């Protein structure tokens, strides 16, 4: 009897705890604000005509408001960071419950099938309406160790036993959550200092690279062996789903800097792999990695890292994609106008320096300049030095001398490398800086 009373007390204590906990969370936790607004917009459209689905590269590259204005259609981009083909499939299922799109554009990149462990459902699950599919999604998308984090999103990133970081002002968040702008899904709550939510799932990233400074872009080698079979299976299922609904599907690889393509070991194999999938399903695959400058010039300032477009590139590329999808839907698309036919042709057609960076040999105390470039180009380097932030650079090694520079004599300061094609008379095509410490 005593044990029963103790057990009853424990259960009662736990139940009350859960209620208080849920109430607190409801009033003070503001998780995944972007997804909350994006999903609210997703559920409140009249119809979605063009549905873009993918991961962060779509999210930062495609602004539906621009496409809508250009085409007079209703578009939506369902793309979040680290979104996987599993998320895509269930989001498509959800989309078909409410809308009948004219076109589905599925994002594909060399990281789409990476066998990384599933992250907790930071994508759509918490905001998705309850349904049988949502349950299936939970079990398919989330590793068992993340079930708790999905049920209580506030716990998803908890390492220490407290829920909020020290600068999380609970009182301020409580007030904010009661405010009208928050309740009305103001875009302010989907934005951060570096990112602005621009509607219908798209985000504008305000970070940018300096012109001519792409820097080092090395990535892991792509091999077919590392393709995650589960993600691949859901990728196939997503295409089949669209086809079964009678919607045309495009597989599309968003633009990346040429340096990223050149440095991506196994890029051609990856491209072939995706092309095979497209062929298997009879759907087109368009790779903006091979885009011609006449269609979309990949300026360095359009990107904020090796694969994501920023706020400057977003409107430019959105207009390109508007024209592109319009031509596709009207059957007037001329692929040759947009793309080179292969990796080799892309490299041959871009005889320029894509990027440069420096490698430091600690033992020899020598900096070596390196670069990626198009076919038929030989790089040459110029080295300049300044002792501190305030000083001006002074040339310490002219172009054409060597790709190496000894730095043992410098206690600190900055070495800048300028890189250009041999025979060119421009001051530089690419540059980078190394801080000596």
């Amino acid at each position, binding site marked *: 009897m005593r044990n029963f009373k103790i057990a009853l007390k424990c259960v009662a204590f736990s139940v009350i705890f859960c209620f208080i906990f849920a109430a607190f969370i409801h009033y003070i936790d503001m998780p995944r604000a972007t997804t909350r607004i994006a999903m609210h917009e997703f559920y409140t459209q009249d119809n979605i005509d063009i549905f873009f689905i993918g991961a962060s590269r779509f999210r930062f590259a495609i602004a539906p408001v621009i496409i809508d204005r250009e085409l007079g259609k209703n578009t939506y981009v369902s793309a979040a960071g680290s979104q996987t083909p599993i998320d895509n499939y269930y989001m498509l299922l959800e989309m078909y419950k409410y809308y009948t799109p004219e076109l589905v554009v599925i994002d594909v990149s060399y990281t789409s099938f990476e066998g990384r462990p599933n992250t907790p459902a930071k994508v759509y699950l918490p905001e998705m309406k309850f349904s049988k599919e949502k349950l299936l999604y939970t079990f398919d998308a989330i590793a068992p160790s993340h079930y708790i984090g999905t049920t209580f999103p506030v716990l998803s990133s908890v390492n220490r*036993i407290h829920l909020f970081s020290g600068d999380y002002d609970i009182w301020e968040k409580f007030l904010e959550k009661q405010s009208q702008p928050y309740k009305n899904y103001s875009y302010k709550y989907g934005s951060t200092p570096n990112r602005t939510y621009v509607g219908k799932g798209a985000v504008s990233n305000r970070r940018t690279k300096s012109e001519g400074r792409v820097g080092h872009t090395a990535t892991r080698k792509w091999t077919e062996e590392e393709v995650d079979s589960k993600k691949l299976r859901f990728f196939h299922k997503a295409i089949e789903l669209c086809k079964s609904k009678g919607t045309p599907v495009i597989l599309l690889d968003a633009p990346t800097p040429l340096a990223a393509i050149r440095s991506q070991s196994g890029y051609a194999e990856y491209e072939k792999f995706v092309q095979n999938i497209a062929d298997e399903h009879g759907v087109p695959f368009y790779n903006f990695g091979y885009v011609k400058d006449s269609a979309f010039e990949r300026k360095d300032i359009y990107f904020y890292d090796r694969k994501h477009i920023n706020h400057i590139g977003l409107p430019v590329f959105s207009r390109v994609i508007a024209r592109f999808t319009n031509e596709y839907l009207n059957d007037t698309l001329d692929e040759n106008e947009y793309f080179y036919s292969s990796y080799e042709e892309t490299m041959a057609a871009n005889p320029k320096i894509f990027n440069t960076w420096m490698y430091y040999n600690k033992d020899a105390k020598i900096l070596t300049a390196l670069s990626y470039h198009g076919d038929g180009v030989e790089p040459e380097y110029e080295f300049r030095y300044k002792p501190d932030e305030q000083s001006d650079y002074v040339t310490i090694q002219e172009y054409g001398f060597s790709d190496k520079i000894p730095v043992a004599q410098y206690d600190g300061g900055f070495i800048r490398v300028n890189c250009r094609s041999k025979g060119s008379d421009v001051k530089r095509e690419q540059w980078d800086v190394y801080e000596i410490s």
Partner: protein
Amino acid sequence: MSFVSVQFLLFISLVFLLYFAAPKKVRWVVLLAGSYFYYIISDASLAIYLAITTLSVYGCGMILSALNKRRDHRLHLLTLPETFDVSGETDAADKPVKHGDNLNMDDEIRRERKKIRSKTDISKRWILLLALLINFGILAFFKYSGFFVSTVNSLMNNFSAGASAETFDLLLPLGISFYTFQSLGYIIDVYRDKYNAEKNPAKFALFVSFFPQIIQGPISRYDQLAHQLFAPNKFEYERFKNGLLLILWGFFKKLIIADRAGIIVAAVIPNYTEFSGTEIGIGVFMFMLQVYADFSGGIDIARGVAQCLGIDMAQNFERPHFAVGIGDYWRRWHITLGTWMRDYLMYPLSLSKAFTAIGKGARKRFGRDIGKMIPACLAMTVVFFAVGIWHGAGLKHIMFGAYNGFFIVLGIMLASPIQKIQKKAPWFTSKIIVFRILLTLGTCFIIYISKFFAAANDLSEAFTMIYRTFAEFEIGSVSIAFLSKIGFGIRNFYVLAAACAVFFAVSLMQENKIEVRKFISRRNIAVRWAVYYALIFAILFLSSDFGEGLGEFLYAQF
């Protein structure tokens, strides 16, 4: 795996479950497996040093125990009335003893006993020395080699520019000071024949590695802890609940008070040149608060976990900031280190031939009172030098020890005159509340100054900070601007102030012999649960995230 991580909560839940579900005979095995799992998960590459300490101390303990037994056996044989047989190892072995020749026989026995004892003692001393050398050697290598190399470098640079030995940063094995001291306490006790060595190496391994205490103590004694570890403890609801409450209280102190105070410390102390004297003073005050809440919070979590398992670990703190003297403070602060130093360093020193001789000489020269005082003062000086060194290499640590030692010695020297005054004026005692408050504040002030040595980067920085704190002290100069300068929001300040008020109230109750957990459990269920929920949600929502990571407890680095 930090004590304040979700993983740790899951880990202890699993240990509790497995421990109480396991058959009684193997419950200690669950603890051993859990302890090694905890250590390896936290610090796999350095687990080898824990194993070396365990094996070396176990081995030496077994040898010492065997030597003790052999000695006792031989001494026992000597006392047998009919024979003098000592296993043929002495000349007297084959000589029959004549009855009635008692005087002669007693002398012989006494001589033989002495011989056996001294022979055994020599062997034992060598074994003890070996254990001490191995384990203090490892400890010294990890804790002091960096300091040694940098000192050598600076000396070499004085003589020849550019000449220097290679410096290196060693990753200190988790809890090395604590498990080394605990193990060496055990071996010294076995050497002293206080108890027999543990025969089962796995059980001994559990004593050394018991997971709640391994990071920062308390430094337990074998005779107090071992039987509890190996006993098949039953699940007791009240005890379990009290253990959980103690864990929560530890979290409260660590996460809400220590880590919040730590934000101020981290902003002010390393950049003290950018702050006014008053602000430096506040920074060091916060350091004092942080150290106490952090260390005692960690100990509470450790003791709470042990209590849930039915094990009572030694208390390490008894509200040190209510102390009425430095001696009293050290009896309340890091109690297990203090008693370790007392039992294994101070007493042996005081009773050593050299100190006895010093005492005799001093008594002859200065009289009885001072003669008694001098060896005690010398022993205390050595002890506090060791306490300083225990905290780390470097002059600031030695100064920390010397400073505390000075006040302890002063206390010893003043004890007799104060007693004389008290005889004449009985009201002159700490039992009078005003005196008590004054003595407590005075003690806190002395301890506060010592924290400058602990907080500063080096000795000269400590002196500069002390000078600036008092030379530039101006309470009116502190404003909200100070908090915003260090990025410490006003709400953070309110939370810290409220948490400190709760901490103080609880300490005051304890100081007045009120057992807080019993006090709460006597209230009705609504009040009780309200307290529990308040504590849990305060931890969940108001904790600070300063200094995350395994070594985030300040004393884990010792």
